[in-house]
């Protein structure tokens, strides 16, 4: 059982000269896997370190399990943390690294042994128990760091970019290992990353942060389908969502105009878009929502445009097409039947229902 609750938490450094978190309110449910994402320097680590008790809270309250922990030292918060740099004790063997916290708790030796071996078995590091960290590979060190957190059986697991030092293949492997660890341990996980793929694949809910402010806190699906603003829309999804300047007109029905093309306003967004008649908005289309001319044939409410390919990237089953529209470069990802080369003119289409609309000034989603 462990819920985490931030209420109006402010964090500043250097006696208030630098405010990193202006106001944070957040509720994390028990046994939830929450991922904090955001660009570098947005305050993810700071938030995590406040939960750990490694950073003081300037003002506001932090509760773990409905108990205010502002002034409770890290060791009494019943949390465990995995650091980006692993932070293993270099002078201790893997076994001692994992046993350290338990030894400090004065747990009986045989019980410590049982726990360490249990964790080592799950993480597949049994053969290395007598080695020092320097004799391990990056992935093995990472697992030791996880093991050190596991043996303590904490209420909350905090992980700060634990996979960012691993190569791509290992990262994918460890990702699923951490996910299954979460299912097995049934504790609350708070996981920091700047990799949106990690966030999307692992999280129950994702906190998207920018400049210390929560942009949206929701499930991966909702973040992807209904981003609250342009920041979230651009941050979630890869390649990034295309943003195209557009305007709303009423002319034989509500229409969106952009770069000489037009689409009808989708039914469910109509009433919100009516407020923007005659105004500029931003149209957002995910690269993967573009259709090739073939696919678009049978669709209605589709907008088809002809663009000149600047660069074409084959990525196996799909092709990324870079093209220019309205003075900006955009990406479309389509299933191409035949090879597309740079310089080719291609027909691209998208359904009006897959388009996103944003207020140009507030950057908020319309509808």
């Amino acid at each position, binding site marked *: 059982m462990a819920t985490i609750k931030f209420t109006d938490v402010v964090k500043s450094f250097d006696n208030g000269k630098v405010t990193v978190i202006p106001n944070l309110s957040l509720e994390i449910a028990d046994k939830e896997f929450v991922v904090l994402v955001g660009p570098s320097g947005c305050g993810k680590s700071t938030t995590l370190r406040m939960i*750990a*008790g*490694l950073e003081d809270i300037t003002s506001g309250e932090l509760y773990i399990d409905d108990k205010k922990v502002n002034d409770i*030292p*890290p*060791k009494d918060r019943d*949390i*465990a*943390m995995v*650091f*980006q*740099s*692993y*932070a*293993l*004790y*270099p*002078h201790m063997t893997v076994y001692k690294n994992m046993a*350290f*916290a338990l030894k*400090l*708790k004065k747990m009986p030796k045989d019980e410590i042994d049982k726990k360490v071996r249990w964790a080592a078995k799950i993480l597949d590091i049994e053969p290395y128990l007598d080695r*020092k*960290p*320097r*004799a*391990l590979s*990056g992935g093995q*060190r990472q697992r030791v760091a996880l093991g*050190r957190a596991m043996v*303590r059986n904490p209420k909350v697991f905090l992980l700060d970019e634990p996979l960012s*030092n691993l190569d791509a293949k290992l990262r994918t492997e460890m990702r699923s290992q951490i996910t299954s660890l979460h299912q097995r341990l049934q504790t609350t996980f708070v996981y920091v990353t700047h990799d949106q793929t990690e966030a999307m694949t692992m999280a129950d809910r994702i906190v998207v942060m920018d400049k210390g402010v929560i942009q949206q806190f929701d499930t991966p699906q909702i973040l992807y389908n209904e981003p609250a603003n342009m920041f979230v829309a651009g941050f979630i999804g890869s390649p990034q969502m295309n943003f195209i300047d557009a305007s709303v007109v009423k002319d034989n029905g509500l229409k969106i105009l952009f770069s000489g093309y037009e689409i009808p306003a989708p039914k469910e967004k109509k009433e919100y878009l009516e407020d923007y008649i005659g105004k500029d908005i931003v149209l957002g289309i995910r690269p993967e929502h573009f259709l090739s001319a073939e696919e678009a044939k049978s669709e209605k409410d589709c907008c088809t445009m002809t663009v000149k390919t600047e660069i074409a990237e084959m990525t196996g089953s799909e092709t990324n097409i870079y093209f220019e529209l309205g003075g900006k470069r955009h990406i479309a990802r389509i299933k191409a039947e035949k090879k597309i080369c740079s310089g080719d003119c291609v027909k691209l289409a998208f359904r009006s229902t897959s388009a996103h609309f944003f207020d140009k000034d507030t950057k908020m989603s319309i509808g």
Partner: protein
Amino acid sequence: MKSKRSAVNFLIYTLLFALAAVFLAPIFIILLNSVKSNFYISDSPFSIPSGESFAGIQNFIKGFTQSDFLQAFLNSAFITVFSVGGIVLLTSMTAWYIVRVSGRLTKIIYYLFVFSMIVPFQMVMYTMTYYAFELGLNNRLGIILIYIGFGAGLSVFMFSGFIKSIPKEIEEAATIDGCSPIKTFFLVVFPILKPTAITVAILNAMWIWNDYLLPYLVLGSGKSRTLPVAVQMALTGGYGNKDMGALMAMLVLAIVPIIIFYLFCQKYIIKGVVAGAVKG
């Protein structure tokens, strides 16, 4: 190409051997003469002891029993051991505090330590001696305090340089694992500092063991005199004939402990103990 390189190598090695021979010659000569009988020491100091010139361990027995050698040896050992222990323990803690608690005060303290390092001993020697007597530090315990003071500058400097390279996360992990600051220091930080601690210990031990001026000024040549002072007294003291053989033996006995200490510690100086703690 290859032969040219090996020729260069040969030259370099010859040069290095020659230099080493020059530096080691005095020690070698002392060793030689420590097992020669008195007459031959002054007659032919450079000859290899053989036959009648060979005196066995007689000189050592004489040297050991003469002029309270054992007392001086124990004085030196006591002062060196506790000064070095004190320096290593206290300066590593100081350096940890200075590095981890950043602020104006710690910065000032740090620069004071560095400054103390560049002030030559001769400059403060008389005032220091005066105050040592005033404060009653002119005894074996008092001089330990003085040595800790003199050793602190360089040691704090060396320790803080190394501590800066230890990732802070290791200590934070210890905090989360349940360490108080004291436990963090002794269970995590100090073991990581071990190579530096040993380097600091060797440097200070060599200096304190061999130091002549400070113990001469503070302790004098009385009962609490140290080994270098005792040797010096044996060399100049008394009229008539000096027992050169015994003196040579004393010198050998004075050098041996520090060499043993050095050889013993050397194997613990492993580079990069932090390697493997972080991503690396």
